[in-house]
């Protein structure tokens, strides 16, 4: 009997202890939008570090599939579901902020000493809506040229191309469909906006850096003869140097073809390095600056993702603690090394040689020559933006399939943005 009482008493004590522990634990709900198994693992590691420093905090990471992540974010925010930290990418930032559920982070930034360490221009880029920051970026993305020296050496190509013309000629030289060897890692689907625009705009020397689709004189460039030449080159990359199947290639298929060596030239973001490092041996791939066009310039754009706080969160201060923790040099460097993004902090570039050498060489060179590599913004705050990327993809595919002419294509694009800009 005594034993029974002792057992019951012990169970009660343990239960009470567990309940009191649970009562003191704060759970933060955090959602990521760029979900992948590798990225989830990296985030979980960082979360564990944070939880070790804050024993009473538990972070519940929500990782919806990439394709439907924003639908989940919209749904959770619009229905006030428990959420404390929310990830948003640049292309969707305006839409998410328009829900009216995001906390203005300007008062937090004003009191944050770490803000001074953010790379120049980043906060300005983030202030898409009404000049206010609603997220703190966790990584920066920009396209560079990835190439496979081992494959290119077989064709006597020892240097990465510096111009679009050289790239095209190298691709032509390599392409041999009977041997399933092609040059350019074409992107036909999965919203290829960057790919189309990088090649097309490289033919123009007067793009407005604050708007990818306007010239410095305020006019749209779609009907400019120089842009038509750029689009012809884009079409020729598909017709003459890429597999026909690449009209259906998104990110996964592009990486597959690059790893297989089928297409040794690829335009991609730094997060690709995380994947490639696990699939290729060291030295099997390198990066170089994007080739410039006949204008002597090329117009890449900064992409970014970042963490924000819903304005109805009950744990805003703790959520901000986590965001600050994520933006410390050590964690930022770890995240960017493992995941492959470019760091958001100046001190990481200065103190960690990893980000200025090896596979990051392409970006280093691009960042050091702003006259040649003109980082340009997209009109992300325009309500037409959400429709544009899919519209551009579909109409471009029609042109690739020969269903519409380039003239018809540029007329469609011109009319789209003329209406969207109210011109």
């Amino acid at each position, binding site marked *: 009997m005594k034993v029974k009482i002792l057992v019951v008493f012990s169970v009660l004590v343990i239960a009470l202890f567990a309940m009191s522990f649970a009562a003191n634990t704060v759970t933060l709900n955090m959602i990521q939008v760029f979900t992948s198994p590798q990225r989830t693992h990296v985030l979980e590691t960082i979360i564990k570090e944070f939880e070790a420093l804050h024993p009473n905090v538990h972070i519940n990471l929500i990782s919806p599939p990439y*394709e*439907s992540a*924003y*639908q989940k974010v*919209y749904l959770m925010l*619009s229905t006030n579901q428990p959420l404390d930290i929310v990830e948003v990418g640049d292309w969707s930032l*305006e*839409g*998410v902020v*328009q*829900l*009216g559920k995001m906390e203005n982070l300007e008062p937090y930034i004003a009191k944050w000493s770490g803000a001074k360490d953010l790379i120049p221009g980043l906060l300005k880029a983030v202030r898409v809506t009404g000049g206010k920051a609603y997220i703190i970026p966790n990584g920066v993305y920009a396209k560079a040229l990835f190439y496979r020296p081992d494959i290119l050496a077989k064709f006597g190509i020892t240097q990465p191309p510096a111009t679009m013309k050289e790239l095209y000629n190298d691709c032509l030289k390599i392409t041999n*469909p*009977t041997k*399933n060897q092609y040059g350019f890692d074409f992107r*036909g*689907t999965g*919203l290829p906006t960057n790919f189309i625009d990088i090649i097309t705009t490289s033919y123009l020397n007067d793009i407005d850096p604050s708007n990818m689709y306007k010239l410095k004189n305020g006019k749209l460039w779609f009907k400019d003869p120089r842009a038509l030449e750029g689009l012809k080159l884009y079409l020729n990359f598909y017709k003459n140097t890429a*597999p*026909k*199947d*690449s*009209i*259906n290639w998104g990110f996964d*298929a592009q990486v*597959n*073809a690059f790893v*297989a060596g*089928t297409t040794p030239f690829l335009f991609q973001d730094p997060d690709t390095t995380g994947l490639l490092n696990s699939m290729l041996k060291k030295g099997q791939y390198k990066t170089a600056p994007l080739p410039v066009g006949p204008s002597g310039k090329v117009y890449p754009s900064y992409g970014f993702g970042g963490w924000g706080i819903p304005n109805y969160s009950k744990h805003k201060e703790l959520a901000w603690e986590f965001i600050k923790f994520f933006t410390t040099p050590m964690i930022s460097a770890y995240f960017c090394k493992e995941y492959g993004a470019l760091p958001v902090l100046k001190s990481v570039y200065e103190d960690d040689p990893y980000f200025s050498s090896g596979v990051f060489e392409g970006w280093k060179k691009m960042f050091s020559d702003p006259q040649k590599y003109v980082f340009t913004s997209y009109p992300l705050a325009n*309500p037409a933006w*959400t*429709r544009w*990327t*899919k519209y551009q993809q*579909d*109409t471009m*595919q*029609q042109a*690739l*399939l020969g*269903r519409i002419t380039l003239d018809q294509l540029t007329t469609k694009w011109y009319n789209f943005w003329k209406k969207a800009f109210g011109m």
Partner: protein
Amino acid sequence: MKRSKAHRNLKNFIFWMLFPTFTIVAILTYYPTIKGILLAFEDYTVFTFQNIQFVGWQNFETIFSDPNFFIALWNTVWWIALSVAFQFVLGFALALLMRKPFRGRGVYAGIVFYPWALSGFALGILWSWLLNGQFGLINDILMKLHLIHHGIDFLSNPSYAFISVIAVNVWYGIPFFAIMILAALQSIPNSLYEAAEIDGAGSVSKFFNVTLPYIKPTVVSTLLLRVIWVMNFPDIIYGMTKGGPAGSTNILATYMINIVYFESDYSKASAVGLIIISILTAYALTYLKFTSSYELGEI
């Protein structure tokens, strides 16, 4: 008096037993349907969440002025006609083959019916890799057999892509008809065949005079259901092509999903949904008129 009290009690009992089901159906089906219909007449996008306006027929006008809508509509007709026709004929044939017992029939049936148990979306992704023009297993096999020299652009050539998605849908849907028709076939009493044989009926005569009339109700109801399901079945197309290239494999359901995913225009998507419902309602009413409930019950 006693009888009417018992009757009232029974009515109360039935009401309270049905009440939870009706409540759940009302919350999960009727409320979203009504809300969806209203949404089609509003301006509900990511950018207008905070200021939703009634816009009348504007969403429908936008849809009807989009040539891609009519491509999707026309594709939907072909998608349903070819998918259901082939699924039905091949499913029927399979059911006839499996009607008579043979050794290992259970295992064979399990293998044949297996695709039906899988997610259509997952199968779509699987087939998109099998049919990949560069790295696809099917092209690889065809090349190793020296039947082709270059990979076939199954999913990047618009004509091939549409045939490919229909072929996969046929493959996926055969088990449904096979299961339903096989069950109906197994319920036909042998005495009917014996009587037909005594009357001198051959195999063809038995099929048209015994088998077909007996399973007619099953055929009618499965065809009705299948047309509705296939029209509302974007899974395979979405997994394989997402409606591309250039919208060439879009059906109305994938066209609607793309509006949600890429335009975040929920009202426009609801308007497409309403058009789908209208077409299906018209179809169901016409179909039921031509195959009256009397015939459905007739054996």
